[in-house]
């Protein structure tokens, strides 16, 4: 029971804080109900056009590619740090990893992901 006590305390405290903030805000906060307030962006410019605008799918593809290689780098950092301990096995494994990523890149290039025409 005693081990759980801090957790319970924490939970109760969190609930209390949130509850307090919401209540105080509701009581104290100023309110204005004019049409400008109801707009999507309170910047003075009336919003125009649909919010559901289409973006070229190339943005997504590039983003995905970026993400893939970004993650690759994330994986390579720890390997670089412990390169000596991991030795030959580590080298082989990282090599396989990089080759696989390269295969992906080749595939992406062949499928024309980086063509902007």
């Amino acid at each position, binding site marked *: 029971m005693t081990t759980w006590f801090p957790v319970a305390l924490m939970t109760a405290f969190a609930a209390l804080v949130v509850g307090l903030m919401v209540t105080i805000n509701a009581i104290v906060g100023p309110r204005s109900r004019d049409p400008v307030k109801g707009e999507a962006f309170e910047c003075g410019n009336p919003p125009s056009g649909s919010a559901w605008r289409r973006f070229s799918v190339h943005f997504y593809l590039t983003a995905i590619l970026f993400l893939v290689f970004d993650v690759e780098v994330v994986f390579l950092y720890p390997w670089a740090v412990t390169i000596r301990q991991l030795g030959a*096995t580590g080298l082989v494994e990282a090599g396989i990893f990089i080759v*696989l990523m390269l*295969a992906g890149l*080749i*595939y992406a290039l*062949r*499928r024309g992901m980086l063509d902007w025409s």
Partner: protein
Amino acid sequence: MQALGPLILSWRSVLAPGIVALTAVVTMLVGSGLSEDESESVGWIALTGLVAAAIASLAASGDHIVTFGGSLIIDDYTAFFYLLIPVCSAVVVLFSFDYVAALGLPATEYYALLLFATTGMMLMAGAGDLIVMFLGLETMSISAYVMAAMAQRDPKSSEAGLKYFLLGAFSTGFLLYGIALLYGATGSIKLEAVAQMVRKHSIALSPFVLLGLGLILVGFGFKVAAAPFHVWTPDAYEGAPTSVTALMAVGIKLGAFAGFIRVLLIYLAPLHAQWSGVLWALAALSMTVGNLAALAQENIKRMLAYSAIAHAGYILVGMTAGRSEVGPALLYYLLGYAFANLGAFAVLVAVEQAQQSGTKLDDLSGLARNHPMLAAAMALFMLSLMGMPPLAGFVGKFYIFSVALESRYVWLVIIATLNSVVSAYYYARVIVAMYMREGAERQAQTRQPTLLFALAVAALATVIIGLLPHPYISASSAAYASAEQVLRPATAALQTK
């Protein structure tokens, strides 16, 4: 050379899935360099890789050894699935050739994803820790999401893919949370370590372990399409291209059950009292929902989806019993189920192509007249799924139910038997449609040697596994026994205490 020993051992465990994964990469690279028409021939690369992997599965057989620090396991259980899964995928490839072209699916991506999915399934079978298990599951699932949505001309296909993906992502969260809870409670993701920890009473009954167990049941329940986590199945099965449905109904089930059975029946066996009740409910619900809903279906793919739910229920009946006698029965059942289902979907693919029709029950009318061999094969698969002796489906059901009864799950067996009777009705409907209804005169069939070969393989397997079950049961027994070895000494120690 001495130092290379463990390394060689490790590579043995990864050889078969490695071949599949490598083939996938090769397929992807070669295929993307070819023109649209040429790229269909990459199917042969995929086929070669799958056959090679099936042969390489031998490398994983043997006594229970853990490799890669516990991440992958070498034993006959692994080898059993390393063999079965690529064979099933190969059969799917065999009947995909013309179908991919006819539907205008991107061939390169189709085969590459099929191979990646296969890799995932195999990893699930060989996984020795929960992370690799999860990795396999995700590799398999994500490939399947994409494949389900591949027929871009068909809005139903996109719908299938989207629904499958949404609910799949949802359930992945639960599974991962379950794994995390189990890790939190036991301090390890290695299945063996987890098993040892949960054997201690104090840990086994902690809320973390129980919740983790529950969420893992949810996650696997989704993948094996057990009710109430089955809701995605009919839509996904119906909308996906038929060959992909076959992969979902067979390969994904095999992979998911391979992992599920290993985790639950072997490593979490000490918690049997904790999970058997939930499995009981899942089994009863799956069988009943699956069979009753299948009665009302007019589309065969949808009907087979509900039938797959029902079959998951039958397998869960065996898992509920949880005794080690039931293990071989489950593997044998999966064997029979896999080929009967593959065959049924192969027939559907053939029908869709030969008649340029859909997969409604009406589309099969008069099939016996137009394509007697297709009809005969379909009848065979339906009878096996129905559990008609002496086909594989019957022997498997008998085997599972009798062990469950031995374990005193009387009501569950009664529900199961009643259900298997209800199922006779909708399987019989297919036969009735083919043999006893007149269909429109159709054009002559397109000859497809690979498809016919796939059909022949499935039909022969269904008959032989049922008529001469002995070698298959012993193979299943050996596989399960070798997976169980991990527990023997520990159990003995527990008893002496």
